[in-house]
């Protein structure tokens, strides 16, 4: 079995290098694997489902932009921008650094980004995940309130071990018995929010499949919340440890405040790493799986239908395998983000010992 898998991989590798050599040809035919993959994992103004004979089957989303040039708000459906159309001076840019974003032109012909608060694919995906979270936890909560002393049942029984795990092994273990309760709502929300979005990202079609947690804006906001909570809960001990740690010899603290600077940098590095870790892990998973899809197109264009069908078997096999792997990653990354947040909160509230 293993030998077979290896030989399959070898064949795959040979073919893919071969197809890379034909990149120019493919571009002429309108398929760029790189763009295809990146487009799949990027945020978008509509939720693309399929293309059929030149028609886009997509969920249109509202565009909300404020033009700085005209000092005016604009609201319209993203259908107005399909197929590179322009609407009221707005269109989607094709050149860096504004590539893929709505832009308008000033008098000199420069591309200007308006203030863009559009409900994009990722925003909708976030709202869908929020609705699912509420749909799961509000009925559970009701049952908890009504039948407090009864053993958990159904979905409640599925969620309770996870909630207890976050409470006992994450919050209590990292923050301590006295102060953990204050941080529980944030930790639970972060965990289930990340897990739900990671999980939904595994399914390829609307209303799932958006790359939410593989977007820096999303992970950045959550990491920022962790940073803010850590900072406003910082005890005297926490700040003293940063600026004048008693464990460090004086010549590392004065006259050149080497260690304090490093410690202070760490305060910002921690949430940054939190942001990047989740982003990179989920993005990586998405890219790999989309790449296997792109492989089918590459084979179709390079070698025809038979080759594409052949490779699709392998691709689908790998995609299924990777999806199961990513299911594990979805849980682990949600756990890691929550756990590290809890550790940072624990450091912030730690008392003198």
């Amino acid at each position, binding site marked *: 079995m293993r030998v077979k898998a290896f030989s399959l991989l070898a064949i795959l590798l040979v073919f893919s290098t071969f197809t890379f050599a034909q990149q120019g040809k493919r571009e002429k035919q309108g398929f760029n694997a790189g763009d295809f993959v*990146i487009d799949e*994992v*990027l*945020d978008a103004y509509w939720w693309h489902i399929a293309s059929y004979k030149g028609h886009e089957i997509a969920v249109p989303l509202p565009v*909300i932009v404020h033009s700085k040039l005209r000092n005016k708000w604009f609201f319209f459906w993203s259908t107005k921008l399909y197929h590179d159309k322009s609407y009221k001076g707005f269109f989607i840019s094709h050149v*860096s*650094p504004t*590539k*893929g*974003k709505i832009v308008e032109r000033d008098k000199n012909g420069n591309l200007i980004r308006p*203030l*863009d*608060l*559009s*409900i*994009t694919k*990722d*925003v909708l995906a*976030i*709202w869908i995940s*929020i609705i699912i*979270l*509420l749909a799961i*936890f*509000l009925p*559970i*909560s009701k049952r*908890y*309130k009504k039948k*407090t*002393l009864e053993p958990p049942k159904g979905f409640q029984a599925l969620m*309770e071990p996870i*909630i*207890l795990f976050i*409470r006992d092994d994450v919050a209590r273990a990292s923050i301590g018995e006295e102060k953990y*309760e204050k941080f*529980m*709502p*944030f930790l*639970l*929300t972060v965990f*289930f*929010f990340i897990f739900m979005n990671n999980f939904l990202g595994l399914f390829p079609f609307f209303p799932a499949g958006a790359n939410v947690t593989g*977007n*820096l*804006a*999303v992970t*950045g*906001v*959550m990491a920022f*919340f962790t940073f803010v909570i850590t900072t406003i809960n910082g005890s005297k001990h926490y700040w003293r440890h940063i600026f004048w740690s008693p464990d460090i010899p004086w010549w590392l603290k004065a006259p050149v405040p080497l260690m304090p600077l490093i410690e202070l940098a760490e305060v910002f590095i921690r949430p940054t790493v939190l942001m990047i870790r989740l982003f990179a892990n989920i*993005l990586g998973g998405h890219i790999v799986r989309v790449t296997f899809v792109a492989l089918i197109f590459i084979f179709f264009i390079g070698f025809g239908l038979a080759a594409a069908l052949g490779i699709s078997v392998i691709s689908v096999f790998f995609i299924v395998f990777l999806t199961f792997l990513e299911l594990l990653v979805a849980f682990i990354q949600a756990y890691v983000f929550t756990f590290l947040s809890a550790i940072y909160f624990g450091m912030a509230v730690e008392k003198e010992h």
Partner: protein
Amino acid sequence: MELLTPGLGLVFWMTLSFLLVLWLLKKFAWKPILESIKQREEYVSQSLEQANQARQELEKVKEDAEKILAQARREREEMIRDAQQMRSRIISQAEEDAKKAKQRKLEEALQEIDAAKQNALKEIKDTVAELSIDIAEKVLLSQLDDKEKQKKYINDLLKNANLN
């Protein structure tokens, strides 16, 4: 490059949405859920404690019961002993009384016998006197010539009198 430039709009909506879901879940899910779990855990530990207490109490009650039982047994034995003592006392008393009564009756009988004997003796004496008088009368009346015959006759009379 587009991957690494977070969209401002997404940051805005994410912040808003996350705060909203945090608030909603905190208020309507996490607080009641955690509170309920805590209550249930407290209830379970309380119940365990109560069960423990009940067991201890039960043991104490058992001990008490055993004590009471032992005391009852002791008392019963005492009562039985007392009863036995009383019985033997009553029996011995009764025996003694019976003996005394018997003695008294015996004495009375003896006295009566004595009295009867005295009476009899007195009667005998009277009879003897009467007989003597009779004999003497007869002797005197017969005026026998034969001295020897007289003697013999007196002896016969006496013999007859004695036999009576």
